[in-house]
């Protein structure tokens, strides 16, 4: 009798034991992830005034306001452009860089370390530095372009030198900065993937007379798929949510002509807190949909398990 009781308590204890180890992480997730999500959802349905006072339930009014924003359409379209352009360009560059860094060459260690720099620097700082380099009168990029004859005129009233004042030009510069800061992580993720490919496979291919190009397309890329999938997925989420680059370089301006949905959400906050929360909910939905679609398309489960 006594024995079975002990055994039962023991097994119950055993089943509870993992909780002890999972507990801190669960509490953290609850506090840091789920609580804000809950507050965001709640805020989106409240009537909150400009200085943060809650005047009660608002129903779907905040969402109606978001969907009536005259510029929402343009912002959404721009966000798609932003994500596709940054991720595709980053992946192409990173594939090339990863292939390069997978070769042995003198100075490889230094080169690999150097690649970390844009990653190690805060994204915000990088954006500030680029904004300064693009300053119309004395920014480094403008001065150099002027010296090389690529810009006819620099200065306060030189319209071409004012890159960040013209929405299209500003947007392309920001894409460039986003690619610049995304490349290190992506390259390292792909490099790690490359190093898991056993050299014997290449040897066998060489014996069979396969060309370098053929080996790359038929061996490297397929075997790199798990790494590619993870890198692309993380990049998509990162780039979609990216705020500091655009905010620091243009504040989404002029107007909201360089804003993505994330920046647009913050801009809306200045005129309505709950409407911005509603926009956040919409953004949150987008991320979830994008991730699900991507996982479906890349058959995530087969890759990982």
């Amino acid at each position, binding site marked *: 009798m006594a024995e079975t009781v002990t055994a039962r308590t023991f097994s119950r204890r055993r089943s509870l034991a993992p909780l002890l180890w999972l507990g801190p992480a669960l509490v953290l997730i609850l506090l840091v992830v789920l609580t804000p999500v809950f507050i965001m959802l709640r805020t989106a349905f409240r009537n909150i*005034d400009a200085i943060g006072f809650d005047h009660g339930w608002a129903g779907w009014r905040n969402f109606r306001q978001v969907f009536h924003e005259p510029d929402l359409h343009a912002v959404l379209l721009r966000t798609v452009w932003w994500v596709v352009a940054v991720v595709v360009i980053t992946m192409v560059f990173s594939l090339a860089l990863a292939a390069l860094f997978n070769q042995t060459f003198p100075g490889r260690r230094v080169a690999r370390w150097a690649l970390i720099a844009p990653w190690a620097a805060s994204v915000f700082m990088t954006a500030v530095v680029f904004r300064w380099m693009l300053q119309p009168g004395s920014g480094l990029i403008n001065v150099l372009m002027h010296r090389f004859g690529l810009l006819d005129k620099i200065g306060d009233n030189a319209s071409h030198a004012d890159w960040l004042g013209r929405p299209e030009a500003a947007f392309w510069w920001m894409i460039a900065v986003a690619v610049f800061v995304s490349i290190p992580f992506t390259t390292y993720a792909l490099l790690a993937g490359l190093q898991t490919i056993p050299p014997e496979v290449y040897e066998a291919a060489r014996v069979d007379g396969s060309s370098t190009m053929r080996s790359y397309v038929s061996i490297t890329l397929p075997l790199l798929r798990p790494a590619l999938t993870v890198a692309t997925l993380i990049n998509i989420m990162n780039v979609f949510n990216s705020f500091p680059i655009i905010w620091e370089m243009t504040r989404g301006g002029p107007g909201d002509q360089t804003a993505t949905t994330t920046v647009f959400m913050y801009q809306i906050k200045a005129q309505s807190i709950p409407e911005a929360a509603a926009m956040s909910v919409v953004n949150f939905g987008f991320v979830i949909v994008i991730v699900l679609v991507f996982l479906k398309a890349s058959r995530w489960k087969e890759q990982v398990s």
Partner: protein
Amino acid sequence: MKRSFVASAAICAVAGLVLSGCGSSGNNGEAANGDITLTFLGADYGTGPADSSTAYWQKVAADFHKANPKITVKVSTINWNDYDTKVKTQLQNKDYPDILQGEFFPQYATDHLLAPLSDVMTNPDAGLAVFKDGFSVGGVQYGIPFDTSARALFYNKLAFTDAGITNPPTTWDELKTDAGKLKAKGYIGYALPLGPEEAQAESYLWMLGNGGGWQNSSGKYAINSAENIETFQFLKGLVDAGDTEPNPATYDRTADSATAFAQGKVGMESNGPFLTATIAAAGKLTTSDYAAVPMPGKTGPLTQTLGVADALQVFKGSATKLAAVKKFLDFALNDDNQLAWAKKYALLPGTQSAAAKLENDPILGAFVKALPNTVLYPSDSNWTATVLPAIKKSIGTAVTGDPSKVLGQLQDLATSGS
């Protein structure tokens, strides 16, 4: 024993992380021995550590403390660029200062946060009368004008001579012609700061020149009135001709147009008296190299210019606390302090008595005299909460895009809530 101490310390630490910002003000700033600490939050009008407003307020607080050893005023300031966001965030977290200097939000009063001015100043009518209505909600005044400004057209005399212009413009057509001549000499003809910082002021000055404004004579929003659309079409023409800097929608007043004027790169711009301080600091132009005249309108100069005031407002508190605040405000707004502030930033005073003392000042005098007759921004709560942020964000795009569309969207926003 020891373990429970560690555990409770840990709980406190975690709770502190979650609830930080709530714990410190538990005693409300009032100590048992009658000492009172007041918190003062102000805007920083300076451009860097050298002329920071914190230093000014710390000196005022120290002088005040000498005379009233029982009362300590803790000062902090926020740069104007971040002012809106930071103050709103602080208030949203229910962390109220005792005294707030800067923009007046009617919501402070409608949410019952503010003490009426009559409770916190010995003479609640000390401020310039023209701003009284703007700082009142439901007939009760909650803010006192602390510093003010009036706007005028500044022009660079050296640039004008260089371009062969003898007299400053009085009409839009003259301004356009002059801007063209200045541009030909490599200057920014007219600097048009329609960037977020103060697009509402620049836009308003131009609207007034065509008999327009943010609201019509009966106090209803009329942002896309025919007059205003015509005004922005004129501005668009100015921008298209290259008579301004290339991208007005991202061009701000302090960082861009004022700095460029002080460096002698600008022919004309509208600005407030504080531009004289920027010019003096840059050391490039002397006081005889530039002058200020009334802003040109479509057919003649403005008879009433734009007046702007920043407020001092007091958050509710115990009677003891409000009594302490009253002493401090009476001191902080005395003529000496008002004039010291005016001199420091080339702003105009907020009180009548201090303003009267500046009427014959060679630089500020003309601006002071214009004050009683100025036009102000709308003062309804929808203005500061919704309309103003939207104007700051997007009105600049009216001179690159379609003026009637941009102004129409702003009008929709302004009237949708009511």
